[in-house]
């Protein structure tokens, strides 16, 4: 099944050396995403979801160590890809947008110059073609008077507009895969919805795969085909959005879902769920289930290696046969 996936990640690990020992930021993550599909990766901050996407792009900080059994894009092994090959893929076949639109654009160059760069350096055409493409995409992402915007500098634009520019820039070469790392977290609530709708529309329109990293389950429900829930560097549950939302199998997913009110279903006045405790330290490594200290159903065998179970495409990582409701 994973064989024809656009992106195939198996047993990915990212370790970051810190003063007290290696920080196991991503531990044994396996994910795949097909053409034209939207996969949402959810989890609390620090659970390794951003690092997973950076590891895919080969953009980890230099001190971080990436290992995996397989990391393939369109069947091509990225683990063995030379830096030049990764550069050729980045910005062309796979593109990425980031959390911080305010600082993700270079203050010294006009947005036109920055928009045109991927087009030019990936050899898609001359400057005139690049400019035409930039204007076209700026209009498509909802920026008025696109032609005159090209000469503006990033500091002249609001955060929402800058994120639209970032999106347009990622689309310049028509990528097969777009990785969006919490693209709306830094924006105003009203703009968040617009940007997400825009991303979902563009995903369909360009027929590209979208890997959307977020901690907002409301977003997931409305745009994702499939969802992966990460906790303490691991994928604890993964499946189609319907399956995971309808019948969450991991206690952590349950906890997350009970944290969001559902209009019309959650009775007024009923307290929202919370998950007691804090995420364990990932320095030095963890034996067994990382969630067991916070889990209401923890057992003795939670401290041992946890089996991955599946129900067709729905997989989870828990010793329990069935989580009591």
């Amino acid at each position, binding site marked *: 099944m994973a064989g024809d996936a656009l992106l195939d990640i198996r047993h990915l690990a990212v370790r970051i050396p810190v003063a007290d020992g290696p920080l196991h930021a991503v531990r044994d993550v396996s994910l795949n995403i097909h053409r034209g599909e939207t996969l949402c990766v959810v989890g609390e901050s620090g659970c390794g979801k951003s690092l997973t996407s950076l590891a895919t792009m080969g953009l980890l900080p230099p001190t971080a160590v990436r290992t995996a059994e397989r990391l393939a894009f369109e069947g091509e092994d990225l683990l063995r890809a030379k830096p030049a090959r990764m550069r050729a893929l980045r910005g062309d076949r796979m*593109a990425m947008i*980031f959390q911080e639109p305010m600082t*993700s654009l270079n203050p010294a160059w006009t947005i036109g110059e920055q928009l045109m760069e991927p087009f030019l350096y990936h050899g898609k055409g001359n400057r005139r073609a690049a400019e035409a493409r930039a204007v076209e995409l700026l209009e498509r992402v909802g920026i008025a008077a696109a032609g005159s915007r090209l000469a503006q500098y990033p500091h002249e634009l609001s955060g929402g507009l800058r994120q639209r520019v970032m999106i347009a820039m990622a689309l310049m070469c028509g990528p097969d895969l777009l990785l969006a790392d919490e693209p709306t977290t830094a924006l105003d609530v009203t703009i968040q919805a617009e940007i997400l709708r825009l991303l979902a529309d563009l995903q369909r329109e360009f027929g590209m795969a979208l890997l959307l990293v977020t901690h907002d389950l409301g977003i997931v429900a409305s745009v994702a085909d499939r969802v992966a829930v990460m906790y303490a560097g691991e994928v604890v549950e993964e499946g189609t959005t319907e399956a995971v939302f309808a019948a969450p199998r991991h206690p952590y997913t349950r906890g997350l879902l009970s944290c969001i009110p559902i209009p019309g279903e959650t009775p007024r006045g009923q307290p929202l769920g919370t998950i007691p405790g804090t995420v364990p330290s990932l320095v030095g490594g963890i034996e067994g289930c990382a969630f067991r200290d916070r889990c209401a159903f923890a057992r003795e065998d939670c401290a041992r290696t946890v089996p991955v179970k599946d129900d067709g495409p729905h997989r989870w990582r828990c010793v329990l046969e069935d989580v009591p409701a």
Partner: protein
Amino acid sequence: MLRFGLKRLALAIVVGVAVSAIAFMLLRVSGDLAAALAGEDASAADVERIRREFGLDRPLVVQYLEWLFKALQADLGRSLFYPESVSVLILTRLPNTLTLAGLGLVIALGISIPLGVLAALKRNTWVDRSALGLAVLGQAMPNFWFGLLMIFLFGLTLGWLPVSGSDTLRHFVLPAVTLGWFAAPVLMRLTRGGMVEVLQSDYIRTAHAKGLPVRVVLFKHALRNAIVPVVALSSVQFGNMLSGSVVIETVFALQGIGYLAWEAISRRDFPVVQGILLMVALFYVVLTLLADLANAWLDPRIRRG
């Protein structure tokens, strides 16, 4: 940009006036100029005669205003030793000093920018530590001593380069290297610091995410931002070199305004001394003004301020 420029210009003018007053008063409040001119063996009557002759008996403010008024017309008075006027003296010596400082700055930037970029890229490795160590060592050496070592090594021992005078461009090599060596550490640290900061910024990650070649990321995206304060500082360093030229030019007997200043000071040729002080200070004022404007021009965010 215009408002910013005008504000800076106004400040520069006020500072210029203040500097002219200091350049003038300095020689008068430091001691009895007439006595210094007359020499140690002079009688009291001689000192008084000199005082009257040079108009030193008049009120300070009158002397200053007269000097300033003439200075504004490029008349800085006459030298007590040379037949030329002070303005002519300075103008004939100035090209040598400007050549020296210009070459020094080119050498300083030629050392500091590549080294600073390299140190930033290889942060916390031996490359970085050696570069920083070199900077610390460089700043600890007395400049006249470094100059003498250069003379001894490349002039006397190896015989590669001339060690005194200013006849050919070859004469400028050793003094320019000496000047550049002392201007480089600050510029190097600034380049390194700027690059380290910029390389960690989000927009550099964006540039990598776009698949741009490393050289484009480094030079178009990183250095372009890290260089802004370096450009500003190098103009200030150029000003510092003009004032530092007094030591270097004396060591290498290079006939510039620094050497002229030393000669004039040694001979109590005070019209020349105050003329040079004024000139060098005004140069510095203009250079800092240019540095601020260059900063604003290079950084689109300041431009509007």
